[in-house]
């Protein structure tokens, strides 16, 4: 996108034009940000002492699902889908919890690195199966979700194990100002460190190209198979981060995948990633996760039965997607 000195803006008009085009490209994310502000304001109105402590709780609670959403976003942008995200998270969570229990800090660091490598391997296996067997990705990853969930159960039958104290410490509490939870910083730094260089590299461009049109990508010289495998490998990596977050937030390993896979799909769709591929980023999905969490919080403060929140979450998902496709249909007609 930006190629060095050529794009440095000189005068105000140019800056405004650039900002305008940026805003047009990111209209969905900006809309979500607006929604986030609205929901935050609603939360403050409903519960005037909703402050730093509550925000820290929120940041910790959304950490696993935020990583799951990023994991799903990467593979969907490249035109695939991974229904085994939740299972891979469970696998990473139990592996880390079993190995880390009652061990020293240094060993804990080794475990974290090992689990991230495991995530890369598991994701690469998913990707290789999709590429080699040519079976639709939904089927392969659905089946692999059984495999990884089963493996997680083999490692740990019931929630157990333990998390290294430093792992739990780096996500709890604030950093500097009490309004900035450490969990949010960890999320931002980890995602940014992987995603920003990736997005600016040829590989990142290939991922988007593959998602937009595999044939066009192939004809432009993108190595379709390897790029696909890399996309799934990255999904495995972020799923492993999600699994580590599960261990860190819960203090134990969670062998049952829960509904993270489905929640991740919901979050990316709300976050402006097109299921058809090639469109969207990782910031939108993360904001979507926070918005969905705030909706639940608001409903709770408003005294609504928590069971309603599941129904409302589903209704929001359907409503937003219907709205999105209406906009898309109008655009096609015009």
């Amino acid at each position, binding site marked *: 996108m930006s190629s060095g000195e050529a794009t440095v803006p000189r005068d105000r008009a140019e800056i405004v034009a650039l900002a305008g085009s940026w805003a047009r490209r990111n209209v969905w994310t900006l809309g979500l940000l607006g929604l986030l502000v609205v929901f935050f304001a609603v939360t403050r109105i409903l519960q005037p002492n909703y402050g730093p402590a509550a925000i820290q709780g929120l940041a910790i609670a959304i950490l696993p699902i935020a990583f799951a959403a990023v994991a799903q976003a990467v593979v969907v942008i490249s035109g695939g889908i991974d229904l085994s995200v939740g299972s891979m998270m469970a696998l990473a969570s139990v592996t880390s919890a079993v190995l880390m229990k009652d061990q020293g800090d240094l060993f804990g660091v080794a475990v974290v690195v090992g689990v991230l490598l495991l995530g890369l391997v598991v994701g690469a296996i998913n990707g290789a199966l999709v590429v080699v067997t*040519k079976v*639709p990705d939904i089927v*392969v990853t*659905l089946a692999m*979700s059984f495999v990884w969930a089963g493996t997680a159960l083999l490692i740990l039958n019931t929630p157990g194990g333990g998390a290294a104290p430093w792992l739990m410490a780096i996500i709890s509490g604030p950093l500097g100002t009490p309004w900035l939870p450490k969990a949010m910083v960890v999320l931002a730094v980890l995602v940014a460190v992987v995603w920003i260089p990736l997005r600016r590299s040829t590989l990142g461009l290939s991922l988007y190209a593959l998602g937009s049109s595999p044939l066009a990508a192939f004809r432009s010289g993108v190595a379709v198979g390897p790029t696909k495998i890399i996309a799934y490998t990255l999904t495995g990596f972020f799923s492993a981060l999600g699994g580590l977050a599960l261990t860190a937030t819960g203090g134990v390993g969670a062998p049952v995948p829960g509904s993270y896979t489905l929640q991740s*799909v919901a979050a990316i769709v709300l976050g402006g990633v097109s299921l058809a591929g090639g469109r969207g980023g990782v910031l939108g999905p993360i904001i979507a996760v926070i918005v969905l969490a705030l909706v639940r919080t608001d409903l709770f403060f408003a005294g609504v039965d928590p*069971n309603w929140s*599941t129904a409302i979450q589903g209704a929001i998902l*359907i409503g937003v997607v219907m709205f999105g496709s209406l906009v898309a*249909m109008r655009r096609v007609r015009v």
Partner: protein
Amino acid sequence: MSGTAGTAGNTGAPRSAALTTSGWRRIIRDQPLIPLVVLLAALIALLEVAKPGIVSGNWVATTVRAAIPLAILAACQTLSMLTGGIDLSVGAVASMAAFLMATLATGQGPIVALAVAFAAALVAGLVNGVGIGLFKVHPLIMTLGMSLVVLGLMSVYGLLMVRSGTLIPDQILWLGSGISLGFVPNSLVVFVPIAALIVVGLRRSGYGRLLFAVGDNAVAARLAGTRVWQVLLALYILSAVLAAVAGILITGVANTATVSLVEQSVLPSVAAAVIGGTSIMGGRGGYAGTIVGALILTVLTTLLTVLEMPEAVRQVLFGAIIVAVAAAYTRVTGEG
């Protein structure tokens, strides 16, 4: 076509003398039921070897009884997959129907309870169909969102109805878990007409052909005059009603009703359709294979239980087999 029948026979003759690899492939492609039945027979044989004497009339009855609700849920997947879709809301809708039926049966009697259950399923299917057909929402997202809505609403409803408790009417128990003559599960009364209707309907009825047409090439189908949205609307309503039937049968087998009773059968229902040879890309498949697929999964579960495999190993093998079977299909049919 009919004029070339003779020449086709001639070219076919030398090949059939020695069945080449491509010959096998043709058989598997054109008659996917044959290898599936062979696989099913092999699994049953393996089961008999693992635990001699287990295969009996009663075993057949309990196996078929367990496979029927799965096969009906897999019918929802088969039909929606033929159009290139998927219905992940079957678990929530089936649980909803079962739970509504069981809670209302205590006060309103079974007839009203069943009517409400089916009406609710119809509404859920209608909303799915409107979203997918008219608003062109991706079926995966639409049905996923729908299942969240249904599950949430049912949890709220469950808290309201916590006093009334649940009651599974005797007729439903008879239908779901009864076995007549020692080897005929009563649920066949429901299943045989449904299965016959779907198998024949997919091949012979105009609507059945439309499902294939939409899945094969939605644009071509639309240009040929098909109102694709009407086909999809009817499809997802039908799917929800079938899911309700399955849910009610499952309460009859399990003798309980909860808001998430059927949730665990959603992924196996997709698996049964995939193993049965229906392509998730649309346009290829049929219900007969799905029925055998549901039987294969049921027998496989029994086999792994008999072998005293832990649940974990069962899941791993389950996943591995789905990938293997799907890969074999893709290789044979040359898709992808």
